[in-house]
């Protein structure tokens, strides 16, 4: 193997500024809605103003006559759109399976019932408003109390949880609720579709160019090679751009229908209707312990709402299975149907709401046991994954707790409620654990060594704003031994070698082996070219004697500096570039040999000012073990961002569906309260980089989601410590504390 021998010089693990930063701050990064084409038309969907019923009459006459309007399209005239076949490989799947306008039934507020097309965005908006729709309206069901509408399924079971629970004297039976949350990405969902008579080029806001292509070709009923999806930069996704939403199909269908490029940019309000959300969850947790704090049973029965047609499951029991040592565990799940748009993944799906429930419950249990909450967790630390009965690949949760406790100063905590004060404020200290899956998607990449002395890596993944461009440049730089400036990264195009979905925090881990292999292949070919080019310095040398070190081609028995720069090999052979391909396998297939997760711990301080009922998060220390952190600068930023989002989740965020019409009432950024800069507390992030190379040679796992897992519980636990009030339904509101 080539590349850097001197590890202190390695770009891996070095604080690295984003290589795409200058493009972004100068406005030169071209986002989806920045794409414009000659003759392009604007489309604006007409959203239904009922949440349940059907379209009785669609009157488009006035709208069609308006200035600049090219037409109003709906079920009768948009052309045939198809469904996506079931897929469990995360490479051709959608969350909302019904193609737009498939029937006249309305199942959620804001469901698209027509789309207006005009020369300008303003004209299309006006025309969309002028479409008159008459509905047969039925009362919608957006009830927040969830009951099972589907069969209750057992997610996981070991021992006899009910029996152990019944027998226990120390136990807890509580229900925890997390509300519907809308992602509220800053870059709104948009689609710009160009059709040349055969091929669609779709500029999309997507966290998966490959998945998007594989879905859209089915929806449009064309061959995959006739659809190309491009997504070069994203203003975040948080899961809401993992699968295509109906506006993508509309833009493509209209481009085909009208033979003109079509642009659709959703409004903030539309993004609350038809671009996914985290569903409401209602989780009953029953746990029991012996007097020493050893867990004797856990029952985690959760429900989440989903749409009328799609079965979106929020996997709340994901962490419950393996997080604690406990002989008797039963986890069940069921869906509750609502007249609400289809839910989707939102940062840390499953684990985030799930850990709010279980890590709150553990805190409650610790209080019952009069035990420090960390101590309770240490007592119940498992030695292996008791769900799958396999060893952990790398579990350093105890170190996370211990490091966090030390950095935070946990030893000074007085468990008595409301007992800790500072500057006239009551302090609350709480903690919780965090966990997230560590897996790999299959991935392919190519590496090119080019005759200008630079290298390039290409793969059909995308940078959703997390720093994928930079991380891949670092990996390439390491593998070909060139400086970062000489490493180009090409992403965001479905015609590139299939790359992973930006979901599950798996892009980096998935791509490292593929890029390493591609680089190795390219270097092999380079060395072969070096010995096969007549007249070149190493012509005729046995390739086995050749080596490559930091851009230099040389013989093994000579120093690198005695060799020649690799571009000389290309020049003498008259090669523009030398290419290597590499791939890595998904870790989902087959029975796993080890249980692979990342772990972390949050320590939270809240301040409570009872005289004015003011609660603020004042300090958070988060310790994460996600293996090797390739770029600590971007890595810290991921965790800090997740913590801020977690403050929003714990204290502010919820999408409020109004019961009579079923509309989300707070569908704008003034009424949907997110954490703002002034809410950002003193943040401290520590990475424990325990070595484990199960996923790749650097031992890097994902960090995009874990920072949010457990945080809401840590805040709720801190709130309890400050106020004595246990909040089991998020968000924690002023009125909950004003008693």
């Amino acid at each position, binding site marked *: 193997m080539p590349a850097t021998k001197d590890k202190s010089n390695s770009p891996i693990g070095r604080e690295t500024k984003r290589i795409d930063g200058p493009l972004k701050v100068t406005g030169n990064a071209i986002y989806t809605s920045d794409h414009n084409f000659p003759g392009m038309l604007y489309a604006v969907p007409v959203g239904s*103003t009922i949440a349940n019923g059907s379209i009785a009459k669609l009157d488009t006459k006035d709208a069609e006559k308006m200035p600049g309007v090219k037409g109003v399209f709906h079920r009768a005239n948009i052309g045939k759109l198809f469904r996506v076949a079931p897929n469990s490989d995360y490479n051709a799947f959608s969350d909302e399976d019904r193609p737009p306008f498939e029937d006249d039934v309305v199942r959620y507020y804001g469901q698209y019932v027509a789309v207006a097309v005009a020369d300008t965005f*303003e004209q299309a*908006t*006006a025309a969309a*408003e002028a479409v008159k729709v008459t509905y047969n309206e039925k009362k919608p069901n957006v009830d927040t109390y969830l009951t099972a509408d589907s069969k209750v399924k057992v997610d996981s079971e070991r021992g006899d949880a009910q029996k152990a629970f019944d027998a226990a004297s120390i136990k807890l039976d509580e229900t925890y609720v997390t509300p519907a949350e809308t992602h509220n990405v800053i870059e709104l969902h948009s689609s710009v579709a160009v059709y040349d008579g055969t091929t669609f080029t779709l500029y999309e806001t997507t966290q998966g160019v490959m998945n998007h292509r594989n879905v859209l070709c089915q929806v449009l009923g064309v061959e995959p090679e006739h659809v190309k999806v491009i997504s070069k930069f994203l203003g975040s996704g948080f899961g809401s751009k993992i699968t295509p939403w109906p506006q993508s199909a509309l833009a493509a269908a209209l481009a085909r229908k009208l033979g003109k490029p079509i642009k659709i940019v959703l409004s903030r309000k539309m993004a609350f209707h038809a671009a996914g959300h985290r569903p409401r969850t209602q989780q009953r947790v029953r746990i029991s312990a012996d007097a020493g704090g050893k867990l004797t049973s856990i029952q985690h029965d959760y429900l989440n709402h989903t749409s009328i047609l799609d079965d979106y499951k929020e996997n709340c029991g994901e962490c419950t299975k393996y997080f604690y040592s406990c002989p008797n565990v039963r986890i069940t799940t069921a869906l509750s149907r609502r007249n609400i748009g289809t839910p989707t993944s939102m940062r840390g799906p499953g684990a985030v709401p799930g850990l709010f429930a279980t890590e709150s419950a553990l805190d409650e249990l610790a209080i019952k046991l009069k035990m420090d909450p960390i101590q309770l967790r240490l007592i119940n630390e498992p030695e292996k994954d008791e769900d799958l009965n396999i060893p952990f690949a790398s579990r350093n949760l105890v170190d996370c707790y211990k490091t966090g406790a030390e950095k935070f100063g946990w030893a000074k905590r007085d468990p008595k409620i409301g007992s800790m004060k500072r500057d006239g404020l009551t302090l609350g200290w709480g903690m919780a654990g965090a966990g997230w899956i560590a897996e790999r998607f299959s991935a392919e990449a190519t590496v090119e060594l080019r005759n200008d002395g630079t290298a390039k890596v290409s793969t059909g993944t995308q940078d959703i704003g997390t720093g994928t461009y930079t991380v891949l440049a670092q990996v390439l730089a390491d593998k070909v031994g060139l400086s970062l400036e000489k490493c180009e990264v090409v992403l965001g195009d479905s015609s590139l070698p299939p790359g992973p979905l930006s979901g599950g925090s798996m892009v980096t881990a998935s791509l490292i082996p593929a890029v390493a292999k591609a680089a190795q292949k390219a270097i092999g070919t380079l060395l072969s070219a070096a010995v096969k080019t007549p007249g070149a310095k190493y012509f005729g040398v046995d390739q086995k004697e050749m080596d490559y070190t930091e851009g230099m081609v040389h013989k093994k028995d000579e120093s690198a500096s005695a060799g020649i720069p690799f571009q000389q090999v290309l020049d003498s052979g008259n090669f523009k570039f030398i290419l290597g391909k590499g791939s890595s396998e998904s870790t989902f297939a087959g029975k796993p040999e080890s249980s692979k997760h990342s772990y972390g711990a949050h320590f939270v301080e809240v301040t409570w000012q009872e*005289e*004015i*009922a*003011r609660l*603020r998060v004042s300090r958070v220390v988060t310790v994460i073990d996600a293996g090797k952190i390739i770029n600590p600068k971007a890595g810290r930023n991921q965790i800090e961002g997740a913590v801020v989002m977690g403050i929003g989740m714990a*204290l*502010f965020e919820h999408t*409020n569906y*109004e*019961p*009579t*019409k079923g*509309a989300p*009432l*707070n569908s704008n950024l*003034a*009424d949907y*309260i*997110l*954490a*703002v*800069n*002034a*809410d950002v507390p003193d943040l401290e992030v520590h990475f424990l980089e325990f070595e484990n190379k199960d996923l790749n040679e650097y031992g890097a796992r994902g960090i995009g989601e874990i920072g949010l897992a457990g945080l809401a519980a840590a805040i709720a636990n801190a709130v309890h410590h400050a106020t004595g009030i246990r909040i089991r339904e998020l968000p924690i*509101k*002023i*009125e909950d504390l*004003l008693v």
Partner: protein
Amino acid sequence: MKLFAFEKCSDISDAVKKTSASDTAQQGANIRFVAGGTTLLDLMKLSVETPDTLVDINRLPLDKIETTRDGGIKIGALVRNSDLANHPYVKSHFPVLSEALLSGASAQLRNMATTGGNLLQKTRCVYFRDTAYPCNKREPGSGCPAIEGDNRTLAILGTSDSCIATNPSDMSVALMALEATIVIKGPGGDREVAINDFFLLPGSTPHIENVLKPGDLITHVVVKPMPAGSRSVYLKLRDRASYEFALASAAVIVQVENGKVSRARIAMGGVGTKPWRSLEAEKALSGSAANEANFRKAAEEALRNAKPQSHNKFKIELAKRCVSHALKMATT
């Protein structure tokens, strides 16, 4: 949003002339002044306001803050919220006004928002802002879904069976405590209105929010100096730390002599259908010792007539704590 004409005006009387043909100066006016546009354009995009004509007043010479002979200030209607908040004389002599302004909206919005526009900003009631719902304020007689519906942020004082919408302004609350005067130029000439009389209660006509008639242009807001020795505080309570309307706020101005409150001005925001001055609380407090028990008593008085709705009962206690804490802050 519908098409509209955009007109400039040459001077103040031209502005008055151009808008005097409007059928109303209240909700649904067909001719509207536009200042910073941060309320109006937002509502036009939502089709809640549907004027045919906008008269742009941004070039009128109403962008000065002058000190008056008595040490007060005369604020031009077009003075931006950020300029007013950061004006050295305002900061030193009317800190309550500066604090109220700076607690509102965001820096970008404050740079656009004007004094006149802020006085006339509309409620954030979600039903008012969504034409899919009935709303007595937007369409008189259509009903009020907020009374049975989502009313967490809505009013508990000054409500009626027709409307419970909160007046969301922070600035106006401070101006209430400062007993400001609104100077209006209308087709019939100039007139001055005390701020407490400027805003109207919803009663059975929630679409009529103030005394303005077609053509009426707010030209200035005049504020008298605070009596020597007065101390003031603006305290705003809300879910998050910034960039959110008040759930409850209080502007208090108090003078304490020999441990006793000799004069108090108490106004509340986020709880009333108009910026809410509480004469009852002021009366309860004057002459009494400046201590926490009396502050709380005054706060109880201020909320005595509060009428909660299904989701905002907590605001009664929150507003009480807000008022008494503001008084405590102002006197310690």
